[in-house]
């Protein structure tokens, strides 16, 4: 059975449901404190869950990205182990430069939402599309172009970059795994399909090798049908977000 470490930085608040979602697909999940790194390299993968690591001081994810534990995670990612950051975990991974990871520096940031309806923190259900044509550790169980119903909950979720050429590379490398779309799967650039004004509707980016993912939406909050609005009569059966965790399990087999 694959073993995943769920990293608990001070201020993280999604560790329990993230661990449950990992265990729901038959992997083992341990919640590991940021300052307890004794056996961290013994895990097969690492998930950085959502929250407010280090109070989001300066900018979301910046401080945690500099935490010593991230050096270990970087090394393990280079070895090909699976690393996934969700929401604040996404911000941490992007601030550490692992994503998009085309150069050895921070190339992107998660900027404050642009949203005509609610300013600041915004929590709602949206649609994302499996946009990547290549298979990677996170979409093995997804069909090409599959549209998923998942929630977002963030104030700084707008993928942004100063590097105008970067998007071209990301598209060419098939690194734009998840993009916000409307009900029918169109990558519509306007609110509400694009809930935060993210650059070309980016919701999640993988590294070139396809073993690291940074995504703003929360698949662990859509891992049971019970959690999906209007679908609770389906009870504890698998929700759309679970496929991402199933993909990780298959990849690690």
């Amino acid at each position, binding site marked *: 059975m694959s073993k995943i470490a769920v990293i608990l930085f001070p*201020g993280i608040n999604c560790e329990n449901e993230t661990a449950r979602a990992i265990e729901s697909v038959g992997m083992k999940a341990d919640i590991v404190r940021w300052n307890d790194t004794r056996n961290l390299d013994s895990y097969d993968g690492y998930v950085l869950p959502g929250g407010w690591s280090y109070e989001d001081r300066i900018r979301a994810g910046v401080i945690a990205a500099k935490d010593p534990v991230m050096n270990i995670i970087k090394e393990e990612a280079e070895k090909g182990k699976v690393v996934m950051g969700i929401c604040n975990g996404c911000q941490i991974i992007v601030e550490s430069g692992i994503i998009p990871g085309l150069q050895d520096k921070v190339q992107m940031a998660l900027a404050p939402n642009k949203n005509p309806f609610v300013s600041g923190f915004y*929590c709602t259900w949206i649609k994302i599309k499996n946009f990547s044509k290549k298979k990677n550790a996170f979409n093995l169980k997804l069909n090409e172009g599959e549209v998923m119903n998942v929630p977002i909950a963030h104030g700084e979720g707008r993928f942004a970059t100063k590097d105008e050429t970067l998007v071209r590379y990301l598209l060419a490398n098939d690194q734009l795994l998840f993009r916000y779309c409307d009900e029918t799967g169109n990558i519509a650039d306007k609110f509400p399909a694009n809930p935060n004004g993210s650059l070309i509707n980016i919701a999640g980016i993988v590294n070139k090798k396809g073993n690291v993912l940074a995504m703003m939406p929360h698949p662990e909050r859509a891992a049971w049908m019970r959690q999906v609005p*209007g679908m609770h009569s389906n009870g504890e059966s698998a929700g759309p977000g679970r496929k991402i965790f199933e993909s990780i399990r298959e990849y690690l087999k």
Partner: protein
Amino acid sequence: MGDVDIEKVQITSMSDPDIQQFIKKNSLALKVSECREIVKLIGRDPTLTEIHMFNIEWSEHCSYKSSKETLKLLPTSGPTVIMGPKEDSGIIKFAKVDGEQYGIVISHESHNHPSQVVPYEGAATGIGGNVRDVLCMGARVIACADPLRFGDPNGTKKNYVKYVANSVVEGIACYGNPLGIPVIAGDVYFNESFNDNCLVNVVTLGIIKENEIFHSAAPENSDGYDIVIVGKATDNSGFGGAAFASLILDESEEEYNKGAVQVPDPFLKNVLIRATEAVFKEAKEKKIVLGFKDMGAGGIMCATSELCDAGGFGADIDIDNIHISMKNLPPYIIACGETQERFTWISPSSFTPTILKIYNEEFELPNVAEGAQATVIGKVTKSTGYILKHEGKVICNVPVNMLTGGIRYKRDKKEMKRNFKEPNLKEPSDYNSIALKVLNNPNVASKAMIYKHYDTEVQGLAVIRPGEADAGIQAPIPGNKAGVALSVDHNPRYSRINPYLGGVAAVAEAMRNVAAVGAIPYGMTDCLNFGNPEVPEAFNDFVESVKGIADAANKLCWKGDGKSPVAFVSGNVSFYNESIAGKQIDPSPVIACMGYMEDYTKAVTMKIKEKNSSLFLAGERKDELGGSVYYELHKENGLNVPKIEFEKEKNTIYAVIDCIDNGLFLSCHDISDGGLLTTVSEMILGGEADGKIGAEVSLDFSGLRNDKILFSESSGFVFEVNDKNIENVNNIFERHGVKIVKIGKTVENKSLIVQKGSDVLVKLEIDELKKAWTTGVARAMR
């Protein structure tokens, strides 16, 4: 009586005017007679620290000195109660899983005055205190709800009202979201009575196993146990603003203004919660019994004295051991200040190192927030004296039960003259425009703009979230289908006109809302927000309101046995809510009702699900538009507020629950603010306002004038039934002795059509309904 080592305040030899001057100089809330009472009670003149302690313990907030007698009217026990109102939170029975009884811990608090003065911090610290109340029972905190009342957004004070409203919402979001506690319910009203005094109430839920409750008491045989405090370093924040302003301190002027406002730190609180859960786990594994309590009003003094007194012990505390973040604080500020994010443990000395290690090393509190830590500050003692030492001297030495015993007042009451009467309005000629105005009224319109600021999904336990239905539902035991439902309710305009009926209606609506999703009402809490209890008319409004909620709780019984009351397990009283000119707010007994659902998959939302299904009404339309939105549009109050017929109401609630349990409803929505037309419109729209199925309704079932049928807020439900289930639904309602009537059907057309005979009164497209309903709150807040 024990003595002290320092100078005392010579109350005995002071004249009344001298005492009055002393009270003013020290910004005390005590009265002259109460200062003399202290001397009589402890048998000597008190020290300044002791006076400050009694000042807090005898405050309305701590002692319930005006309200205690009246609160006895409320039912507080019954078969669904695990623990009634005696500790920081109450506990209601929940599911039994694998032989283990679970309980829902619930607490309800207000933070009204701080939120009016500094709305962002006030609202944030309001949540903070309420969450601590639930956590300290040993529970996992799983949900919050926020009943909010703001002033008139179009009135004379609209700019400040909007500022307060937006800042309160932001404060709740910026505190609750980082903590990781989902918001699952809430309500919002705007009216001019809250112009100078907003209401910010908070309800928090937690889940716990019945045999794993931590009590707010020093355990048996705990003589010699350590008193450990944990959390933020103590400073001067939250020590009565005026008191602080009258002191001469070395600190800079910037500190001078912090005064009574507590300073929220959700980041530290997040880590504290996780570390505390680690202590719970360790203590359970090692079978160590600990005492645990939140530090709220009265800070260290209240928490430690109440813990020790509850166990029949005393305390010996050295103030110099308390970790502080400001120099030269007088000892009574250290003892009584209300610095946020702190708790107290009573621990055997063998277990204390474990507690210190978890907080200080594993979760690195000192690195998380400057000066934060866990520290031993004293011992539990066999003698029942409450002793505080400072610089080697005893500065307080009073019997602990005298300190916590409080005082009582019997307040005068007198019925307020109310001159409300029914208006004489002409029947409108254009129902379309009235319908849209009602939907656009901020007290009716969609609150999405507010609750989308809140994290409704964190913890992954959501089943039904705000806006989707009349109550929110969480599934708090992962893997199990047990659901906990929550609704918070009260209509201030009803209570303005008739406090008794307003109280009754609040309880009935809270129960209807819980029933409308299919859950059985199991328990309640109240937050009683009123004016000045020293004014006989205001106190009478309080008493009448409590009578109303008590009657409703007793008569709308628990469905489990059909006779026990739905008990109040915790609550809060907030007096002195009034305008600058001294006019009281609308009497506001805000009710939270918790419901239990064995199988959440059976829950229904309000959104219409199918074309060509039937719409039914339970609950006769009556000429009860007093306090209605319709009258508000005409700038009228009216007189006839909805009256609840207890037996009928109870039976209707039971029948609705039975129908949902049998899977017979496609959707269900209670009738409240705005009346029948609003209910049907909201069913068409759904919480996300993305509904695509319309409805045709006929008013031929009633002989009332059309505007009264459409806008009366008489209690009731509308529900959607597939035609194949109509007979079963009829049978269930008949069994409960309740008449229902078919009022229309759902249609493929994307419109709402209302007819009387062959006259079309309302014909509106869904897009028109949507625009009115989704823009009302933005109009009020922006």
